[in-house]
């Protein structure tokens, strides 16, 4: 037991004496959190919209006003011609252009069903479809109001039957994407620290030669492992606390569920990342390799974790692959506990999967480690 404690104390001393490392571990995540939390925003608002009103009637002005005050769009100065509107999209000044043709309101009155053209910058398909959806919804609303008025005017209101939605949003009433993203951000930060730094740190010891010095001491491989990894577990938890605390205090991150449950999932997650970091260190001979390989895993783990892109949207084979991705579980569990207050009953399957992954990774890694060291 004593060798482990001694080793742990040495590791802590090393960490605490390394000022730049401390900054990296404690300050950088906060900076990253603040930047990420503000940048990582999937709310489709501030779409730049330009309206070419070739009709200039009170109706067309009404439509323009409805679009402007909907809150979804930033209005771009109106173009004078269709050509100019097209240029605005080509140059990137506008993402959407609504063209209200000449004689629009007259054709409307006489029942000739004029066509409103909407030009969409389709590069980002998500923004394009949502943006088009908003424009369509506002135009449809206006259309309906016109019809209702007209029917009322001709005394046929009784024919109007509308189906309207009453909506209720659970858990995140304003649907702020930041709360959806913070669990992913926490996962990323933890992964960077506990996987990338761990692997690089262990390889550095190999490169510098202090690793061999350790092996020569009467410490057993198992004890060596525990001693080396334990400080990183602590660091991981400290980082989790700092980042989560900051999110709650400064971003108003809700905490609907049980923090102990969250700590348990963090523990299981750290098992997997530390195991992975250790594994990477056994297959790398230089720090650069360790950096690259863990970077490689991390990027893919991140892309397929549900952080940016929902897992449900992926093809079946991809969804199966994500079952072996610890980041997927971390993101999903954190979201469920923090935002929905989900409990162990709801999440037990994910916990089991995460624990299994951790055990598998650690077993394989420890076996490899012992084989190389022993």
């Amino acid at each position, binding site marked *: 037991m004593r060798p482990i404690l001694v080793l742990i104390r040495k590791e802590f001393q090393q960490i605490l004496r390394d000022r730049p490392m401390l900054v990296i571990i404690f300050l950088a995540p906060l900076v990253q959190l603040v930047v990420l939390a503000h940048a990582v925003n999937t709310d489709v608002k501030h779409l730049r919209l330009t309206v070419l009103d070739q009709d200039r009637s009170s109706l067309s002005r009404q439509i323009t006003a409805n679009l402007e005050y909907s809150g979804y769009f930033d209005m771009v100065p109106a173009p004078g011609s269709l050509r100019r509107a097209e240029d605005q999209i080509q140059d990137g000044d506008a993402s959407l252009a609504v063209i209200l043709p000449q004689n629009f309101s007259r054709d409307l009155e006489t029942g000739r069903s004029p066509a409103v053209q909407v030009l969409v910058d389709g590069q980002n398909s998500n923004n394009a479809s949502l943006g088009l959806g908003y424009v369509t919804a506002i135009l449809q609303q206006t259309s309906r109001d016109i019809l209702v008025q007209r029917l009322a005017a001709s005394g046929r209101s009784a024919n109007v039957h509308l189906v309207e939605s009453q909506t*209720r949003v659970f858990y995140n009433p304003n649907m702020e994407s930041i709360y959806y993203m913070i669990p992913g951000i926490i996962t990323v930060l933890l992964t960077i620290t506990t996987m990338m730094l761990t692997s690089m740190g262990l390889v550095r010891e190999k490169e510098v030669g202090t690793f061999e010095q350790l092996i020569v001491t009467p410490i057993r491989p198992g004890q060596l492992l525990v001693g080396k990894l334990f400080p990183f577990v602590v660091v991981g938890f400290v980082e989790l606390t700092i980042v989560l605390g900051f999110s709650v205090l400064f971003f108003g991150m809700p905490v609907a569920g049980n923090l102990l449950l969250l700590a348990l999932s963090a523990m299981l997650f750290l098992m997997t990342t530390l195991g992975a970091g250790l594994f990477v260190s056994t297959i790398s001979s230089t720090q650069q390799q360790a950096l690259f390989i863990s970077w490689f895993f991390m990027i893919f783990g991140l892309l397929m974790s549900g952080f940016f892109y929902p897992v449900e949207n992926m093809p079946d084979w991809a969804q199966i692959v994500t079952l072996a991705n610890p980041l997927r579980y971390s993101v999903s569990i954190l979201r469920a506990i923090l935002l929905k207050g989900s409990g162990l009953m709801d999440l037990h399957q994910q916990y089991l999967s995460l624990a299994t992954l951790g055990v598998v990774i650690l077993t394989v890694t420890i076996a490899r480690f012992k084989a190389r060291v022993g």
Partner: protein
Amino acid sequence: MMRPNLLPIIRKEFYHIRRDPRSLSIILVMPLMQLLLYSYAINMDVRDIKLAVLDESRTPASRDLVRRFTGSGYFVERAAIASRDQIEPLFRDGAVKAALVIPRDYAEGIKTRPSTPVQILVDGSDSNTGAVILNTSQQLLAGISQDLSFAGFIPFQIRANIWYNPEQKSTYYIVPGLTAVLMMMICALLTSVTIAREKETGTMEEILVAPVRPFELVMGKVLPYVGLAALDALIILVVGRLWFGIPFRGSPLLLTVFSLIYLMTSLALGVMISTVARNQQIAMMMANLLTMLPSVLLSGFIFPVASMPQWLQVITYIIPARYFLVIIRGILLKGNGFAVLWPDAAFLLILAVVLLAASVRRFKVRLE
């Protein structure tokens, strides 16, 4: 004008690279894998949203309503429930993301009353899907209202014309950005680590004892990576074009020239970081913080800059990837030319020159 000492250093660096087949294969393979991933696995569009249906009406009219939802392609019915209490547990374990509640008097209401409410319940923890749920359900209900009340008479039509990416493929949007990010990564991350490594292992001093100028040392270490990054970019673009059919509407020459400028800027950043970092771990973290994360998150690659708060948008003005993204998307997807893109390229060039000059000077100062 090739200085005599530049070539040996370039050669030495190539030896280092060649001796590390693992890193090399990752550099060459990763872009391809990301390309494959983005094309086949990742889907930005939200479809097949899991829906719970509570149909208290159970009439042909209500079934028609449900069919409209599921037939739209946006929703998939995962649970037919009998009471409202069942909804929240389904949300909590993620089995459904939305619930549709049709009141008992739905069928009579739509025939006799001016307005009949239908409840849409949304799991707000997923804000992106939530927005799509709200938007789509309102459109679907509007469609029903339209048919009920106005029997096919449409005051005006909406004709949408989607430019640049009519089939709405995520690849078209992502691949240019991917190229930008990868180039930044190889140039900045690798460069910063490689110079820091020489410092850390002490071989830096050995090199400097040789009659090598700091400028030659820096350029010599860095140029091989420019080559690698360019190779990577070429791979992605060629595969993207030939296999995935990503358009290339602009001038390849323009793209090449502007890409080289971007590469210069990226490696200037990498060199700058390496003059500040003491060892590889620190170099990596700094490169991560100052180049990778901003390039991925703040450049407009995934998340739109316009949605960010003002202070953050100001910061994005000094992120090279932001300008290059405009350039590469402009050339590939929009067919933009020099006239539109020169300001972005000019900025990159200025940034590159400033950073390189500063880091070479810093380098000299630190060594003497």
